Every structure is written in structure tokens, then in C-alpha cells.
């Protein structure tokens, strides 16, 4: 299945061809979970990659749906 991924914070710097307007289109196995997506993108726990779908933070074990748009950003605190 295909997933549209937008990256924020310093994460886009990891991908030399990253286009902020379009993000990345990721091809991943049907039924993949959030943690599978993070692994696919080589984002580790220490990168604090937080995944949001439909304006909600989703947890590592949640299953992703085909065609979904996800945002991945880093843990941040109030300033």
C-alpha cells in the first residue's frame, strides 16, 4: 500500500531529495503498523519520531490504512 508522509523538524534533512510540498510517498506492506513505517524510514526511538494521522497522535502498534496521509515530527515542548 501507499502512504503519503510529511516530515517536520530536522527530519527532512535526512532525505536529500525531500520536497516539503509533496513529502514522501512510501510503498509499504499491507497492514503495516506505525512502527513498521518508522523502521522503513529508519527513524529510531531516539529520533523521537511522532506520527500523527487525522490530527491525532497514533501509537506504534496502530495499523495504517492504504492511502493515508501521515505527519511525522519530533517531540517538542512549549516555548
Amino acid at each position: 500500500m501507499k502512504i503519503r508522509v510529511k516530515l517536520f523538524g530536522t527530519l527532512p534533512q535526512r532525505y536529500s531529495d525531500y520536497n516539503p510540498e509533496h513529502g514522501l510517498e512510501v510503498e509499504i506492506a499491507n497492514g503495516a503498523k506505525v512502527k513498521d513505517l518508522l523502521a522503513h524510514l529508519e527513524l529510531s526511538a531516539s529520533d523521537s519520531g511522532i506520527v500523527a494521522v487525522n490530527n491525532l497522535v497514533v501509537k506504534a502498534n496502530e495499523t495504517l490504512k492504504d492511502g493515508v496521509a501521515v505527519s511525522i515530527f519530533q517531540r517538542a515542548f512549549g516555548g
Partner: protein
Amino acid sequence: MKFVRVDMTEQNVKVEDVPQQYVGLGGRGLTSIMINNEVPPKCDPLGPENKLIFAPGTLSGTSLVNTSRISIGAKSPLTSTIKESNAGGTVGAALGKLGITAIILEGQAAKGKLFNLIIDQNGEAGLETADAYQGMRTYALVEKLLSTYGKKNGVLCIGPAGEYQLGSASVQTSDVDGRPCRAAGRGGLGAVMGAKGLKAIVISQQGKSPDAIADVDTFKEAAKVFAKAVKDNPFTGQMLGALGTAGLVSAVNSLGAFPSYNATNGVFDGWEKISGEAMAQIIQNRGGKTTHLGCSQCIIHCSNEYVDKDGKYMTSSLEYETLWSMGGMPGIDDLDVIARLDFLADDIGLDTINTGVAIGVAMDAGYKKFGDGQAAVEMMEEIAKGTEIGKVIGNGPEAVGRHFNHHRVPAAKGQSIAAYDPRAMQGNGVTYATSPMGADHTAGNLVGQYLGGALNPLEAEGQVEASRNAQIAMAALDCTGLCLLAGVALADAAATEALLKMMNAKLGTEFGPDDYPALGIRVLKAEREFNRKAGFTNKDDRLAKFFYEEPLPPHNKVFIVSDADLDTTFDF
């Protein structure tokens, strides 16, 4: 450990030892406990009975990184509650290095008279007439003061808004480059300074008489541990340097909690144009600085220098809250306009949050159209000129709501909310409603918990407890002089232990782990006690009515934490 007591009525300055009852207190702990003891709770905030207190933290002036915060406290003319607003820059560390625990302004100068307080490298303090500086904006003022007294000084000052005694007037502080781009913005404390008749405080950064540290070796070791934790944390060690707090624009919009168009939507249409990522790209392309040292002894460098298309300086430390208040709230998606508005706020001496929200309310009421950047700039200039409409806007969103008879005023206790909508981040709503300071994100911000998935931002459950714990933690942190961003490193147990060690090593105390939250509780109790005596009750610990009635897209939720639950926030 010295107090500089300034009697503005008689223009008399006394330097005295810190009375025993205040020994060991600093920052917000000192300002709030002292105001509760010494200021009549029902006094006119702009009258002679109010006191304006400037206190660096207990660790300011030491070798510890990120400790140049200064707390400024008084009874607020905006909220009529007790108020502490703190700022970075250079003056916190400068006062610490002079061994000055607080500057206390009392009384009131005769109407039309204006003074500067000058504190030299020996800690000698004196008032000088400032009639020549009347009406000056802060950039020109600070440039003049630093050329007169020398560049190795830090400055606290007000602009025209403070002289007009407006509810959104800030106290600006100078950064390491001598620019007045740091602000104790909240609560209208610049108006209190203006009412006292003080235009500026010039403080030598060359002081060499900090308070003695009881155990120097332990302090040094613990300071290294703390600094390492700040460097090792991905947020404080990497992200803030790269994007500053502006990195939150993408995160909070992605959670639908970015109050936009005067809090009628939780996602701003143009947010990707004003995000931290977009701003860093623009600054980089134009040759500005995406990372910048703003405060003394800072190792995070969350500041920036925003420049125009020709590479010319426009503003510094353009932060998340301002990108929201001057961007999302009035619907402006042009970073150049937002940068201009940020500069004008600093230059006129205004809280960017309260002022941007006031502009948003005016637009929502039909005074101008959302997204009209030129109109927003003109409104700022009206404030600077002191026109009738300028004074309405400069007195903040509630004044604007009253003027236009408009109901949607996103505020609590008279002060605007910050850049997290309480309907999409319910716990921040608890903090806004119950903080003794009025709506204030720095009193207990839960965004980190929501982003970390530790708490569901849309449910009522768990929000009061989370807000209570955050408010206690912030009240304690605000006593130390540490920047709240560096405080994020306290998630590391070694850093928490190091902080306790440093407090003990500095003060010669034996604080245990429970004493740190106990300090926060003591401060909150003093603040609540003052507010009770001033006439506030639990019924004031509420948000504006529309937050309970108007659902916020995209989650389409209202604020759902019950009044009964809100009233348990300070059950300690």
C-alpha cells in the same frame, strides 16, 4: 544578597541586606511571596501602593548554563491578579553577578516625570532624570543608553505602550547583542513601570560580587552534569538550535490545536508558510541567522535573526507564540509581515501574544479583514501614537471585545490564551483557567505530553492532575533563573539530581527531592492567597464562555473539563 529598594515618590535609593524572611528565595518565588506580604491586594495596580519587583533566580549569576532569566512581579493592571512574567536576555545574569537578589520599585514619581535607574559594576544604584527619553521606542532608547553608559550593560525598559500604561505593555530586556528583543510580556507589567515613572534600568554586566557558593566543587560538578543533559536531549540539543520554538507550528497544527482566525479553527490554512521549517529556509536563503545566542550563558541558541530580502535585519528571536499570535490569530501567512509586527511589538513595548490576539479579535469583530497584514501594522502604529483605537487595541483582547461588543474573546482573567487551543488541548485549558496569572502557557504547558502520546488531549480525564503537576513544576523552576526550555532536560533523572545538588551547594541547604515540588506549592499558595484577598474566587477560574459552546474544527470539540474538576486543581 542585597535588595535595591527604590522609592519613586522621593527618588530615594537604598541598598540593604536581604531580610531573613526572604533569604534563599529567588525569581518568581521571591516576587510572589513578597507581593503577597507587602502589596495591598485591593490596591490600584497603577497606583503608588503597588510594587514592581525584579528578581533574578537563585542560580542566576552562577556558572550554570541558561540561568539568565529575570522574574518581574507586581499586581497586574491587566488581570488584577498577582503576576510574574519572566524574560531572558542579559540582565538576570548581570544582577546575579552583582549579588543583587531583587530591585524593588515602590511609590510613584510625580505625573510627567520619568527616570532611569543606573546600577554600576560595584552595585551602586542611582536614579537619573529621563525626561529626554520620553516617548522613545525601545530600540532607539537602548542604543542611546548603551552608547551613554557603555556596551557592557544590560537594559530593562519600556516603550511608548508602557508610558501610556496600557494593559498589554511589556518590559523589554536587551539580548547579548544589545537589542531589546526579549520581553517580560505578559500581564501589562510595562504599564506598572510606566506608572511608577521609570523608563529604564541599566545594569552593569561586569559585576564581580555574586553571592558566595557554599560548596563550590559540588556546584561545578553538578553544573557539568546539567549542561550535558541539555546538550544530549534531542529537543534542547538539536531541534531548538535548528528551528527554535517555531518548530511547534507544524506539530500543533498537525494536532488541530493551533487557534486560528480568532480561535475559530484549530488548523491555520497558511501554516506551512509560517512554520519553523519555512522560516529557517527563508532566513538561510537571505543570509540571516537560523540559530543565535540571545541570552547570557545560553547553550541552546533557540533565537534567530530574521532578515529581509536584502539581508537587512528585521527582528530577532521570532518565536512560536508570536508566529501564532501575529500569524494564525489574525490570519496572516506572510512571514515578512509577522516579522515586522514582532519588531514593532518589541519596539513599542508590547506583549506579542496579547496584542496579536487583540488584533485578531478586532478583525473577527469586523474592524478589518482577517489576513490584512497592512491593517495589522497600522493597528500597531495606532498603539504607538496613543490614539483612541490604539489604546483600545493596546489594552488587549478584552478591551477590544468590549469596544466592539464582540463575544469571542479568547482569554481567562483578562489575559489572552497562548498558542494552544483549550478545546484541542484540554489540559492547557485547565492551566489557562486556573493559573493565578490568568491564561498563561508558561504556567503549565502540556504540549510535550500530548506530542509524546502520554495523555489524550481531547478527553477530560487526567487533565487536571497533569496541569496541577505542571503548574507546580513551573512555579519551582521559575524560582531558579533557569530557562524553561533548559528545564526540559529535567526529564533526565541525573539532571534533576544535579539541580537539587546545585541549589543545596549554592544556598547551603539540604533540599531533598520532595522539597523541590514543595517550593512550587509554596509559591502557588502565596499567589492564590493574594488573589483571594483581592476578591477572586473559584468562579474566576474559568475560560471564556465561547470555549464551552463553540466547537473547534477539525476535532469539533468544546472545552469539557467540568467546573467541579477545575476546582480541584489546587487540592494540595
